[in-house]
């Protein structure tokens, strides 16, 4: 018995990672099976499912989601926001409990369609484009777009004044479309709502143009910011459902109507400073929805024009990607060489600095490094532009990898080469320059080319800091058209078309080098 016990422990210790992986895979298989049963074989009306299970699953994004839904800073395990209260009221009316489902806002409608949750309610604007893929309930909030500027800035008073300025707005919103339709505005697109206000305070942009609730929430408590001009445009937030869930829509429409008439909605919105006269329009919802149905503005020119319409934007993004990749690689090469010299030929102190740099940069995620450079440095008084951060971030990160390549290259040169050079009376420096480096360079070119390809692909990470490169362009276009598939393939092809020739080149170089070594 004791032996069996020991044997079991041995097996578990030896194969723990394998076992864990098996369990995870099994779990994935099972949930996959249940998922398909749910959605393919045994389709169940969502309303019935909610009622019978007593739970409604709500999809939202709490990341930078104030005042809609966000984490209470006093009690971070708790969600608060006007939409939290709204959903709670709806659930109460349905007689069910709420299950929270956190989902990135950009892909919230895709996840809804996939069946991850029952309703998507998170400041989702009712637009004709979206109505093609999901079903909206009657509106629960009437929003407008609001300009926010720095208090010290008196150049901007209304929408027209934004021309020629740098304006921050959010990914895939009405405000963004409005700005782009106006033209002549340098639009900076953010995926989180805190960041545009941060950049505004840092003078990186001149104004922020976003939905009123967001503008109000961030401006009110901050004396350095203020809202200018009247709210522009009018639109509505609706609850998004899957197309087939008409019965759920009916039920929710009734509940929204009830909450409106009872004054409960007004109470919730007032608590968040969001109630205004515009909300009176919510009572007229049939008229509003019909309005949209009668004048579908852009939907007619939507479907088949993917290439001609989207390619220029993607190509522009690709150009930015190439430019940033090349510049940051140049930085990486120069900095990498300096680090290598410090490490191989410097005194103890320089060696320590270089080693620490390399280990730290290789041991932390590039994404964190970018965030620190972009959003962290300003808090100690260093504010760099997004472009500079992109180059510095990628370049400084890859410098660590280049340094390792150069070190390996230099150390691969036989000691006899140095000794022969020294015995001829050459100085250490001359030996390095004339004998070691020229030989090391040949060895390092193939891995450097591979690194450049990796950097090129990693440059997609800089889409987090308001640079519209290829990946960001894809995200924007895909979110607008809901066509993640075709656009995704095209974007991937663009990346591939640029990186593949390089990797062919690297392979050729490697082969050439190998045949050379054989001759030796």
């Amino acid at each position, binding site marked *: 018995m004791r032996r069996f016990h020991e044997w079991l422990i041995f097996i578990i210790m030896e194969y723990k990672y394998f076992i864990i992986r098996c369990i995870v895979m099994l779990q994935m298989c099972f949930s996959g099976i249940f998922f398909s049963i749910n959605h393919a074989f045994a389709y169940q009306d969502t309303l019935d499912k909610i009622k019978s299970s007593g739970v409604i699953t709500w999809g939202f994004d709490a990341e930078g989601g104030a005042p809609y839904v966000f984490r209470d800073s006093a009690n971070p395990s708790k969600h608060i926001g006007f939409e939290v209260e709204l959903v709670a009221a709806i659930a109460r009316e349905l007689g069910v409990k709420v299950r929270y489902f956190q989902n990135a806002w950009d892909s919230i409608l895709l996840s809804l369609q996939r069946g991850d949750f029952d309703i998507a309610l998170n400041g989702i604007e009712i637009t004709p484009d979206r109505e093609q893929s999901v079903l909206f309930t009657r509106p629960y909030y009437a929003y407008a777009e609001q300009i926010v500027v720095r208090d010290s800035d008196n150049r901007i008073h209304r929408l027209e004044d934004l021309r020629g300025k740098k304006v921050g707005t959010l990914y895939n919103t009405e405000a963004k479309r409005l700005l782009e339709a106006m033209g002549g505005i340098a639009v900076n697109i953010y995926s989180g709502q805190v960041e545009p206000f941060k950049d505004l305070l840092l003078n990186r942009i001149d104004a922020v143009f976003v939905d009123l609730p967001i503008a109000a929430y961030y401006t009110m408590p901050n004396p350095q910011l203020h809202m200018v001009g009247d709210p522009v445009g009018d639109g509505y937030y609706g609850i998004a459902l899957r197309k087939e869930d008409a019965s759920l829509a009916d039920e929710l429409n009734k509940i929204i109507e009830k909450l409106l008439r009872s004054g409960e909605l007004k109470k919730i919105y007032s608590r968040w400073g969001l109630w205004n006269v515009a909300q009176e329009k919510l009572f007229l919802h049939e008229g509003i929805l019909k309005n949209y149905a009668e004048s579908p503005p852009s939907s007619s020119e939507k479907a088949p024009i993917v290439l001609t319409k989207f390619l220029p934007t993607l190509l522009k993004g690709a150009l930015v990607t190439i430019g940033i990749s090349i510049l940051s690689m140049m930085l990486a090469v120069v900095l990498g060489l300096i680090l290598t010299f410090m490490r191989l030929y410097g005194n103890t102190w320089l060696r320590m600095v270089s080693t620490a740099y390399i280990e730290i940069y290789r041991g932390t995620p590039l994404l964190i490094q970018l965030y620190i450079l972009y959003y962290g440095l300003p808090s100690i008084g260093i504010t760099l532009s997004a472009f500079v951060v992109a180059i510095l971030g990628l370049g400084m990160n890859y410098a660590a990898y280049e340094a390792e390549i150069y070190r390996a290259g230099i150390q691969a040169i*036989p000691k*006899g*080469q*140095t*000794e*022969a*050079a*020294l*015995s*001829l*009376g*050459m*100085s*250490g420096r*001359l030996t390095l320059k*004339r*004998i070691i480096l*020229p*030989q090391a360079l*040949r060895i390092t070119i193939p891995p450097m080319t591979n690194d450049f390809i990796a950097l090129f692909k990693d440059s997609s990470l800089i889409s987090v800091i308001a640079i519209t490169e290829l990946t960001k362009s894809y995200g924007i276009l895909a979110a607008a058209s809901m066509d993640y598939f075709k656009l995704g393939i095209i974007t991937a092809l663009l990346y591939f078309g640029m990186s593949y020739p390089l990797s062919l080149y690297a392979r050729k170089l490697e082969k050439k080098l190998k045949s*050379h070594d054989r*001759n*030796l």
Partner: protein
Amino acid sequence: MIEICNLFKQYEHQPLFKDLHLVVEKGSVVAIIGPSGSGKSTLLRCMNGLEAFQKGYISVDDQRFCGVLERGYNKGQEGITIKNIRRKVGMVFQQFNLFPHMSVLHNITVAPIFVLGVDQAEAESNAISLLRKVHLMEKAGKYPVQLSGGEQQRVAVARALAMKPEAMLFDEPTSSLDPEMIEEVLLVVKELVSEGMTTIIATHEMGFARDVSTRVLFLDKGEIVEQGKPQEMFSNPQNDRTKAFLSRFMK
């Protein structure tokens, strides 16, 4: 011309030379023989400032080197001393160590141009005459990979001579060569010796050592066990270790 005094050297607390003395006069030809691991290479490398040592000194003419080395080269006065010694004493290695990224001509001219400041045309014409001397005139434009081992070693000799040294150190110059190439390299060394070059050569070629050297030195376990004129050493060795070593070779 070269004087080694009181030399003490250890590798990681393993003493190799305990108290070694050696004087090499100008124009003499010293052959160092001894079993593998006896310290032949190390002794030559010490003389060229490629190896640090703990006690004693090595002087070449008026330059005195006391054995402190930081990663192969020194700064300050020590550095200048080592460089001066290296300029006076050329070295040829067992593994040739030609620079693979340079042509034969460039291998020979690189040091004169960048160390001595000779202009390129002069360095090249000098290199050509050195190549003639080692019988490799036609290989000037080739790269080391395109040469046989014997040819590479002769280029290495020419490369060392290009610095116009007053003495030459050879560390088993023929040990990594195929038998048919050994003669061509030994011929070059012989010619050099006949011109009066001060030479120290570590070798396993006993016949060659007997023919060209003015003095033979038997080294064993870091110790000079016996030395003398070649005829006497080879025909009538005094020490038992020398006898044992030579008997293995004379078979």
